[in-house]
């Protein structure tokens, strides 16, 4: 903590000289000066009748009321708004209403103005638009510049980023530049009804524990939010927002990193986080052929196939299909877990699924604790029967 005198407000009354327990304050040209001895006890801050002595602790506290509105930093992929942004808008709308403040979408990119309408229909009251050809997807530094400058100008109370790889690269730099707190990978956000602080809940200790984090004395409060956890609101056609253009001042030092090439052939693109139905397999599936069976079931359900870390480590699945703490977080309508024990690191990524079906030979498997429908049986007996049952038309069985 540091203590200083705001010269324009000091009238030279000398009250602080008597209050300071260690005699660290002297007068110079009619204005109080805090000397090197100061140990930041803060006694003078409270005693000054004119409020001319400031400390970073008191300043932070006094200032936080000046920060208003909830911001959602939109993320685009190939120029399109990502679904995680719509989820954030849904969550941000609730927070803004709880605060009685506005929800603002921050749209930054090369050419993004065409999305302003969609942001309005997704619940934004204001759309801050920042366009610049230096704002290239995947390059954090220009975005750090644009967003930090906007925050300093507009002073939001809350800034939310998606906890995507890009969001988790961008948000920490913004927080460091602003000197404020940042809570990583939140799965729950709320407003404390009394203090109006943002309650940021996230898994800790490998998902064994949940922790609720606050940043009581600094603003804005910043979080990255795990994709697939929050619910997007249905779009309200015709809903309007005020669109405000903000200047972007990208500097040469923001362009020290550039992308040479994207090698896409590595994974076949599956978007697990957006899947409605997921058929998932673990160690119990035993082989790549076992996963062939799950593929067949998935084909009938229009589902994506996913799995546990063990399934990925065994080479039965590519890493982009891993669900869990170190993989993807998903919340489909239906999650069918086959031969999965339900370790916390796995369930952390799929607990939000609406209906969970678990097929496991071990009645004590932890997956059953979070399942809606439990089948204690060999998956190699159930899945083929399931395929047969699904192939029959509705009503035939």
């Amino acid at each position, binding site marked *: 903590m540091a203590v200083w005198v705001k010269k324009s407000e000091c009238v030279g009354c000398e009250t602080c000289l008597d209050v300071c327990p260690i005699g660290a304050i002297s007068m110079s040209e009619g204005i109080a000066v805090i000397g090197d001895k100061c140990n930041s006890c803060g006694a003078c801050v409270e005693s000054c009748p004119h409020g001319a002595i400031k400390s970073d602790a008191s300043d932070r506290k006094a200032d936080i009321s000046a920060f208003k509105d909830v911001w959602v930093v939109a993320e685009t992929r190939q120029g399109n708004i990502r679904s995680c942004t719509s989820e954030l808008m849904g969550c941000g709308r609730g927070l803004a209403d709880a605060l009685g403040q506005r929800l603002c979408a921050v749209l930054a990119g090369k050419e993004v103005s065409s999305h302003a309408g969609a942001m309005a229909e997704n619940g934004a009251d204001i759309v801050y638009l920042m366009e610049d050809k230096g704002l290239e997807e995947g390059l954090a530094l220009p975005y750090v510049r644009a967003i930090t400058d906007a925050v300093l100008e507009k002073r939001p109370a809350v800034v939310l980023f998606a906890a995507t790889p890009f969001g988790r690269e961008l948000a920490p730099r913004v927080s460091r530049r602003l000197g404020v707190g940042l809570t990583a990978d939140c799965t729950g956000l709320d407003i404390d009804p009394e203090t109006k602080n943002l309650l940021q809940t996230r898994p*800790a200790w490998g998902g064994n524990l949940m922790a609720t984090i606050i940043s009581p004395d600094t603003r804005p409060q910043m979080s990255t939010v795990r994709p697939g956890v929050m619910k997007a609101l249905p779009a309200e056609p015709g809903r309007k927002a005020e669109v405000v253009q903000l200047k972007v001042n990208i500097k040469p030092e923001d362009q020290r990193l550039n992308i*040479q090439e994207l090698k896409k052939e590595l994974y076949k693109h599956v978007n697990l986080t957006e899947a409605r139905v997921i058929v998932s397999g673990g160690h119990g599936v035993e082989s790549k052929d076992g996963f062939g069976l799950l593929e067949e079931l998935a084909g009938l359900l229009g589902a994506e196939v996913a799995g546990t870390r063990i399934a990925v480590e065994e080479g039965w699945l590519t890493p982009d299909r891993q669900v869990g703490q170190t993989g993807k977080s998903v919340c489909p309508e239906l999650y069918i877990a086959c031969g999965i024990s339900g370790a916390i690191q796995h369930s952390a990524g799929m607990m939000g699924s609406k209906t969970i079906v678990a097929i496991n030979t071990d009645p004590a498997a932890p997956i059953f604790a979070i399942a809606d429908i439990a089948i204690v049986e060999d998956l190699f007996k159930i899945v083929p029967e399931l395929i047969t049952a699904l192939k029959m038309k509705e009503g035939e*069985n």
Partner: protein
Amino acid sequence: MDKLDIKVLIKQVPNTSEVKIDPHTGTLMREGMESIINPDDLHAIEAALQLRDTHGGKVTAISMGPPQAKDVLREALGMGVDECILLTDRAFAGADTLATSYTLGKCVLRLGRFDLVIAGHQAIDGDTAQIGPQVAEFLGIPQVIRAIRLEIRGDGLLAERTAEEGTEIVKSTLPALVTVTKEANDPRYLFVPLLMAAFEEDAPIRVWGGNDIGADEAGTGLKGSPTRVRRTFTPSHNKKIERLNGMPADMARTLVERLRERKVI
């Protein structure tokens, strides 16, 4: 490129795969929990050593933590790191990522010229993956996050990083900060003579406090941390579970029925 000066950031963490939660109080049982070097950080050390072995230069490992964090620095020496700094001070306790990045950043600056800072992508105790980018921001240098391959090209850095749909080749100026994931390399084994030497009195491990790195107390530890943990709790689930019975074919048919009732298929 001449000789490289590389700093590696390493953290001592509890082995979270063995975490036990007290079922009554919902708190962490720290007793008997083993401390290890954060898994990603082994890959950070390996990446640094490989670059040094190719280009020459020096690798310095830095860790902030309690005095016993010296263990992970000894391990780093055992792998072949040249020298270590242990940042330990009562004033550093209770640091969140903002305060940690300030402390680590001040230390890097105090050590003078550098070409690269390499950190693990994320620590298994906090899982924030925030330290890398925050230290980079503090130092005012570019960052390559989730790198799996590093190469010095001319006077810059060429790196491959994982993206959501594949990998990307990126190019950066130096100095830069890089975080690496497990795909980056296979960490080398400890070399026993080096490890033995790391336990000697004259092992190159300097122990520094806040004054040694010129840190302002307002920026370190709990004081420098804007975030506070308000409460912790164990995740709970209160669902009504329906258990299906009968022959596999019966269960399969019932399941299809249930899923249709729930309108999920």
